[in-house]
């Protein structure tokens, strides 16, 4: 099957592996990720100001494109997923934002949140199925791995509707499917410090260390993540190997 795919800027620069292994694995699983035309930066951070419309427009453009090309938009980067999913929620439920965004864009047909935004992990779970992945694994990973969710995939919980924000399991289920031993540790949904690194280098350092320490104390040998920024912060400060989940998937499927 084919599915519209929104890669985002980071996946073209610092996080090329996240993107590359995702595409290779998807092909192996029978899914073709079709990069949408003329996508623009999602804005990276969801704007919370109630009157901020312009920075949401690029997400709406991508969503509208997907609406006319299969109705689903696949995302991979946690930050892009967060922004696009939340903007889609605005377009569905916030009349003020919907009206203004449509006035700006002057589309042939107004966009009102029709597209379904799905993250790559959700695609694996709901479209491919973890059982189907399990059958295609040729190199079981066989390591004790901690899933590091960070915040952007999970919160705000009601809008993202990704998993239980306090006790998520989707990455653990994924790890199980590729033959790894998932290590559940309490701080897997804590914030790594994110962009605060620009202002206060110390804070992400402390946070990343605390996360890694907690994962270690529960027996993890390495961490996986879906977020380039989490990977950056943990890699720089944590002192434990951390990789993108797609890399492990590609390895397990023998397409790395």
């Amino acid at each position: 099957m084919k599915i519209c795919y929104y890669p985002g800027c980071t996946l073209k620069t610092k996080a090329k592996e996240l993107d590359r292994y995702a595409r290779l694995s998807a092909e192996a699983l029978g899914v073709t990720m079709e990069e949408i035309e003329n996508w623009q930066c999602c804005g990276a951070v969801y704007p919370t100001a109630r009157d901020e419309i312009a920075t949401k427009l690029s997400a709406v453009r991508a969503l509208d494109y997907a609406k006319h090309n299969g109705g689903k938009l696949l995302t991979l980067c946690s930050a892009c997923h967060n922004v696009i999913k939340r903007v889609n929620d605005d377009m569905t439920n916030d009349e003020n934002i919907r009206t203004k965004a449509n006035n700006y864009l002057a589309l042939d047909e107004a966009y009102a949140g029709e597209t379904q935004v799905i993250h790559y992990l959700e695609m694996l779970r709901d479209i491919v199925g973890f059982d189907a992945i399990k059958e295609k694994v040729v190199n079981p990973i066989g390591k004790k791995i901690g899933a590091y969710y960070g915040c952007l995939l999970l919160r705000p919980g009601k809008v993202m509707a990704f998993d239980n924000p306090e006790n998520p399991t989707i990455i653990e289920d994924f790890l199980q499917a590729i033959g790894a031993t998932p290590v559940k540790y309490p701080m897997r949904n804590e914030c790594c410090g994110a962009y605060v690194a620009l202002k206060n280098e110390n804070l992400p350092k402390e946070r990343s260390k605390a996360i890694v320490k907690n994962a270690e104390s529960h027996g993890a040998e390495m961490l996986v993540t879906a977020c380039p920024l989490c990977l950056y912060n943990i890699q720089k400060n944590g002192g434990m190997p951390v990789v993108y989940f797609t890399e492990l998937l590609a390895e397990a499927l023998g397409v790395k």
Partner: protein
Amino acid sequence: MQKIGVFICWCGSNIAATVDVVRVAEEIKREPGVVYSADYQYMCSENGQQLIKNAIKEYGLTGIVIGSCSPRMHEATFRKAAESVGLNPYMVEVANLREQVSWIHKDKEEATEKALILVRTAIAKVRLNAPLKEGESPVVKRALVIGGGIAGIQAALDIAEAGYPVDIVEKNATIGGRMAQLDKTFPTLDCSACILTPKMVDCAQNEKIDILSYSEIEEVKGYVGNFSVKIRKKARYVDETKCTGCKICMTKCPSKKGLDEFNMNLKTRTAIHIPFAQAIPNVAVIDPEQCLKLKTGKCGICQKFCGAGAIDYTMKDSFIERQYGAIVVATGFKPIDLTAFNEYGYADNKDVVTSLELERLMNAAGPTNGVLLRPSDMTHPKVITFIQCVGSRDVSGCGKPYCSKICCMYTAKHAMLIREKYPDTEVHVFYIDVRTPGKNYDEFYRRAVEQYNVDYIKGMVGKVYNENGKLMVQGSDLLNNEQIVIPSDLVVLATAIEPEPSVRKIATLLTASIDTNNFLNESHPKLRPVESPTAGVYLAGVCQGPKDIPETVSQASACAAKVIGLLAKDKLKTNPCVASSNEMMCNGCSQCANVCAYGAITYVDKEFRLGGGKTEIRRVASVNPAVCQGCGACTVTCPSGAMDLSGFSSKQIMSEVEAICKK
């Protein structure tokens, strides 16, 4: 033709500021049938009522319309005034110009128009009104109390004190409720059992009180003064009249792994057991889910050892039916389920406990004999962190939007007791706000802070997790504007309380209304706080809203006063606005009986003359006016239009609709 008088009330500025009351009174004079119309500042005042009375006498009014506040407020006042000068009280109609007009509209012109329409509507109805006479029904001089916690116990004792018999129906094997589980009570720190158990004993010894423990309400019929209640006495497999409470069975029972509900599952108990030492009745009960004899047929040890021969494995649920004049609901509360609160790690860590569990851990009769030990390894916790508002004041959807009201005080109590008994223990409390209004309450909390050096931290906790055996409590300290992590040995969650879930079934049986949080509604939040809107049903304790023991006891006594007032009457006046069936039109289809929530409609076979000397026997509906509550459900259901409601006939309602629609 009726002679109708119209009285438009200003309600001070409540109505007059938005409705041109003078214009309404003037214009309405031109309505056919209206012979008198006036406006006045406060129609409900002594002078206002006099104005009405004088007009009735002077103009010989046969019907009156008052344009004022909601009929729920003053209909009774105006009816009484009319009656005092010889006008039938059911010839009074109220047009609601306050709640339905002035309070909800801004534009005076529009509001005045609407007021005119509503007054005309009431006039249209009163034209068709007929004098009605109230009936009488006798009062059964016995009360039912549902729930045997402190609320039910207090209500029963007070009712019995006035000389009326009262039954307590308690679903558990003993009365005592939540209060029996508590260690100490705020703000005086006296032992909960020491002040509760004498009241339990009083109940048992009072010959006016009949305790039906291990029993539940099965069915309720009837109405105020005449309830008929079917009670299920659950099989306890022990004959209450024979068991002496010697507890030999408990020492012999081989099935010892049941969870002890009284100790919040922190301890195990035998299949046959007495819930706690001071249980009333002091009679054993067998848990059928756990008893080997009942489950597999093999065992029977308790029967062999019971000297009194009280054990009966063949016992079945039995039913009794009794009549009551009044019913008190006192079904109490439970702490909310914490499965939705993964952030506090309650399910994953034995040392994260609820406050009610802590009560048992501190109680001399609890699983640790009153020595504070943490459940995981039975060691003394050195650092204890309390988290308040767990599930209370929570609009996220996981918890409850309301304040549970008791948690600030009991957390201060726990903190103080721990610091007093174990001074080397560090105690932290996370709070959103500390809410301690009440006599000697804020002083109590201040003592925890100032005298016992309990560390109160303003802020919420985002996560509790286990790291190398320590519970890391991660929260924000809002006053210092920093995130903090407190490594703790024990974490106590001040868990929100909610009404005991069985209250939903009871509310349905009683047709008592319930709010979105399952609290029973009171008739008026300020002025009728212990009465349910369903006549003859009264509310005591947390089933009505969160409250502590002093408030619960006050409300229970207030309930008792209301019940005594009701039972002291020999007869009650009944509402004459009841349904009746036109037998000539009734086809006996049963639809009215199916919708009647009060069981007021039965069917009779009646002989009708067809003319030419022929007769036929037909089945027709018959309404018992003493049971009918005048809800009108049958009148709108009846396909042949045979059912009608006195005071609210279809003709009257249609004429009101016409008046509203007329331009």
